[in-house]
């Protein structure tokens, strides 16, 4: 067990190190200079002379250490990974990278958690029931539309939802985190408004992913029904409920949890894209802005944060498997 833990941790470190190294060099190949971007804009509006501008840029470049050799910067960068501190945002100075991430993370996390849990639960329940001969007929009817939507990319789903529910029927807001004119004060009205803005992004993520769970669960359910242990459970005189729960669902848990772990990466990417589409101020938008202004400390912070989070979750899942299936316990 200890060896496994060490192996997994080494693996985790390797993943994070390779991702962070690639991530370090990519923004450096860009011509865009974040400091110049920012002050050029200020210069246009605020009117200081081009010579001043060059001086300011120079001093900031020095202050951020960007004039030093790339190799030195890389070393600092690796140190900053260990310290989990990437310093200041170039573009949104004096905000730190941590500030930027912390501000954005609640939006992304809540969207991700809610949508993943909802589609996993709905999909697996519908899939399990639609393979179960004793389930009522409406279950299958209810599952079909989800199955038909399987694989529609969340962005396309989002555009369609925006067009029909938002634009044509005006049922829900088109984007943003809350309505203009609503005071962000934590009151019920405000909360409700925020929730309304979350419905379409959430639906875009949920609608296309439920079907996948339905299909995989249904397939598994049909296999498990033919298993001798399900028949024997019936011979033992167990009721349908107990068989469904303890023999049938219980045996699909491990493969489905594995599938969930594998899906995590995609789920995060989809969430980021959908946030962009709906203008939610989450990680996706923060990353988007950072890339556009080549604000590399923020890019580093976000990419490493996501990589670290997904890798950690996957490693954690691996320690959950033995709890779900005793057969993997002895390995």
């Amino acid at each position, binding site marked *: 067990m200890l060896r496994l833990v060490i192996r997994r941790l080494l693996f985790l470190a390797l993943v994070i190190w390779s991702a962070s190294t690639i991530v370090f060099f990519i923004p450096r190949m860009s011509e865009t200079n974040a400091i110049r971007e920012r002050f050029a804009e200020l210069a246009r509006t605020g009117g200081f002379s081009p010579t001043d501008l060059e001086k300011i840029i120079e001093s900031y470049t020095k202050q951020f250490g960007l004039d030093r050799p790339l190799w030195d910067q890389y070393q600092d960068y690796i140190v900053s990974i260990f310290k989990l501190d990437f310093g200041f945002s170039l573009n949104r100075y004096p905000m730190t990278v941590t500030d930027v991430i912390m501000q954005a993370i609640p939006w992304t996390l809540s969207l991700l958690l809610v949508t993943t849990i909802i589609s996993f639960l709905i999909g697996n329940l519908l899939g399990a029931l639609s393979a179960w001969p004793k389930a009522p007929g409406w279950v299958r009817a209810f599952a079909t539309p989800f199955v038909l939507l399987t694989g529609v990319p969340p962005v396309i789903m989002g555009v369609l939802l925006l067009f029909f529910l938002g634009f044509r029927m005006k049922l829900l807001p088109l984007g943003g985190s809350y309505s203009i004119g609503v005071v962000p004060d934590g009151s019920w009205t405000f909360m409700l408004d925020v929730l309304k803005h979350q419905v379409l992004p959430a639906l875009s993520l949920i609608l296309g992913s439920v079907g996948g769970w339905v299909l995989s669960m249904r397939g598994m359910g049909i296999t498990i029904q033919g298993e001798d242990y399900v028949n024997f459970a019936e011979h033992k005189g*167990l009721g349908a409920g107990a068989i469904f729960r303890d023999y049938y669902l219980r045996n699909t848990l491990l493969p489905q949890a594995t599938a969930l772990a594998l899906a995590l990466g995609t789920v995060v990417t989809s969430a980021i894209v959908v946030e962009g589409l709906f203008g939610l101020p989450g990680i996706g938008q923060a990353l988007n802005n950072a890339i556009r202004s080549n604000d590399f400390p923020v890019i580093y912070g976000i990419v490493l944060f996501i990589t670290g989070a997904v890798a950690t979750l996957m490693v954690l899942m691996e320690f959950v498997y033995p709890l779900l299936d005793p057969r993997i316990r002895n390995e």
Partner: protein
Amino acid sequence: MNMGQDQNPVLRVSNLEVTYYTDSGRAKALDDVSFTLNAGEKLGMVGESGSGKSTLALAMMRMIKPPGRIEGGRVEIGGVDLMSLSEEDMRQARLSKIAYIPQGAMNSLNPVTRIGAQLVDAIRSHGIKDSRAQVEERCVNALKSVDLDPAVFRMYPHELSGGMKQRVCIAIGILLQPSVIIADEPTSALDVVTQRQVMETIDRVKDQINAAVILIGHDMGLMAQFVDRVAVMYSGRLVEVSTVREMFTKPVHPYAAALISSLPNLENKGVFQGIPGLAPSLLRLPGGCSFHPRCAKVMDICKTTRPTTRMVQGNRLVTCHLYNEEA
């Protein structure tokens, strides 16, 4: 019509019929099957693959699944006809009145839960409200009575050998002390030594709870050592039921006779003779007696008229026109 040697049998199966409605036609897998069994008695059920042995067992449990259907008949245990019970009452009857130890015991245990949980849920599902400790004690006793260590209670199926899993299934079968236990080929996947042990275990627990036991199997030899009576099935019909001694020394049905003489013995030096011809498909059964194309004693009437099951020589059952006069 009295179909057994006892006026008060614990099990009475009468005129049981099962049909599978397959895409290629209707297959009558059980045709007018009747027999009785006394408490403490062991019946061996033999017949070629596909002759309907498992179907008979499943029909008695009322566990025939589509495309199969029980078309009629009665299965009375202690005077109560299982066929007339409500779904819920039948569920309760499973394991408490009649237990089935399935053909594939290797995979009959839930791989992800402990053996203990799989014994406990069987007890709990029958509305037994004993304390946890009492239930556990009961399970451990059941495990002990099939020669398993009480530690098995906390183990998982993958930690057990084939023979141990088979014993666990038997332990589950006797948990609620049913009056009838059906064991479907309980030994077919086991080595010879384990086979013997499992059979002896069944024998012993049967005595403890005085149950009637039906042992399904191919192996006439093994059967002969453990059962009191032997029933022979052929294409969905029970063609002969006799005591072991009668069956092996003087079988009455021509098919049973062919089976017995095909067994390896000292005279023919272990050469398996086999029975000429093939077992018929249930979809295209020959008319009259379905055995007639292979029967050495076939008569004209056999090709046109179905023989009925009748009692001969005291308490032997036979389904053959040769015995029409003796009825």
